């Protein structure tokens, strides 16, 4: 049993996690939940980075990446939340179907 087959379960879980996030991203009608879905996908990717480091034996590098990723992630979430709140102030709802003024 080598290292690669040992980390295979991680790979499967990453895929499942990402699938959950993507599914939610597409079907949800709540703008804040869109952000949550993005977060779930981010979790999957974080895990994948760690697993990648584990497999290749570059754990320190992977950790460095994950730390950077987490910092950036926070900023993205803040920006997204800011936009959602501003939209809410305009429309009084979080329904994503209200974001269809621009079309055609």
């Amino acid at each position, binding site marked *: 049993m080598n290292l690669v087959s040992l980390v295979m379960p991680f790979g499967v879980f990453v895929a499942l996690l990402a699938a959950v996030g993507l599914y939610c991203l597409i079907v949800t009608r709540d703008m804040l939940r869109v952000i949550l879905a993005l977060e779930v*996908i981010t979790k999957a990717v974080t895990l994948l*980075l760690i697993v990648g480091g584990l497999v290749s034996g570059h754990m320190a590098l992977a950790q460095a990446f994950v730390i950077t990723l987490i910092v950036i992630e926070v900023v993205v979430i803040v920006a997204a939340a800011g936009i959602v709140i501003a939209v809410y102030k305009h429309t009084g709802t979080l329904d994503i179907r209200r974001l269809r003024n*621009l079309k055609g």
Partner: protein
Amino acid sequence: MPSLLVILPLLAVLLLNLPLNFLRRLALPAALLLALYQAAFALGVLPACCAGCPTQERWFLNALDPLTSVLLLAIAIVAFVSVFVLRATAGEERREFNMLNLVFLAVAGMNGLVLVRDLFSLYVFLELASIASFILIAAHREMGGLEGAFKYLVMSALATMMMLASIALLLALSGSTSFGAVAEALQAHARHGYVLTALGLFLGGLLIKSGVMPFHGWLPDAYSAAPAAVSTLLAGIVTKVTGVYALIRLVLDVFGFTPATQQLLLIFGAISVVAGALAALGQSDMKRMLAYSSISQVGYILLGLATGTGLGIAAAVFHLFNHAIFKTLLFVNAAAVEKQTGTRDMNQLGGLAQKMPITGVTSLLAMFSTAGVPPLAGFWSKLLIIAALWLSGFHGYALLGIGASLLTLAYFLSLQRRVFFGLVRAGCENVREAGWALTLPSLLLAAILVGVGLALPWLIGTFLLPVKGF
């Protein structure tokens, strides 16, 4: 020293925000100076780069090459122009200052992006440029801007997640993220399903970022709803650097040309060229039409890249540069029209060429350049792309490119006719030419367009063809 191009904006942002009141007024000159410095720097290193001289980097940002220096120049020009537009359209002083800071950060992000040679650092700077743009798009906190920003943010986040997943997969494969190491590892296992999945995820992310059809959903909304200065920056350079440049760079340096990647670029390029032009044809919002036109033009760049030949790549990069110039010019003029008339709806405009002669004439130049009318710059790059396609044996795609040129001409003529020609519409009688802050950049960009077009025979040997040699 290229590293300065990232560090100077950072320093500028930090210094300008010291709690001293007069500093705020220095922000605009500082931004202009920085852009000028960058343009001078890029022009300074360009000949050496094209001559193939190796550049020694003393700090952590690596090599300069022709592609990088061309992009640095384009970033400088567009940033310079959008600062002017910002001045003319931002309104409130406080907001103008805040937006300027974000422009600094976006420029730093783009500069970093074109200078790095490491996948993960590429991701970091790509995110920096993108985050700055989301916030800029939403800066006025109007409903349209917020909607565009949100769509852009979600799709861009999805794209970066794909790229990061791919980076993780490649990290497991090669143990490094530097271009060289990854390219080596990819070369060794080029046909493995694992590698192809990683490749596909990365390419998918980049295609979303470049706004290629069918990955483009966010693009027309973000472009058309953003504040004038931001859409200038965004359409002119941000998406071109974060998407198209990154795509070109990675395909050339890391992924390599395989029949599959070529096929892929050709297919998505062709879809973008045609569908983008078709979608632009029926628009009534000026900026939205320009946004769809952008998609179509990016399609041309992909087609040129797909040939994989020196000529095709050089033409693609040339078109990237030209596109930055003429699309910026068009967005500046759209800003001028919107500012002076209060609307972007082309059905409510008409006869503005009499009232706003500079805007009218420069728009016409830019449109002709986009549509590929000789001897403007856009004609040459389009011609070279089509020639490269033909020479590489992709005759069908070459013909498609020519046909789509007609569509380009058609929608731009309809724009010109509805906005600038014809009778002056009721309500437009008292329209005047926009101020110098908008006409000056227009003239500058138009001069570049014409100059590049006329100087082409010289440029082609000196700068254009060496691009392939990196």
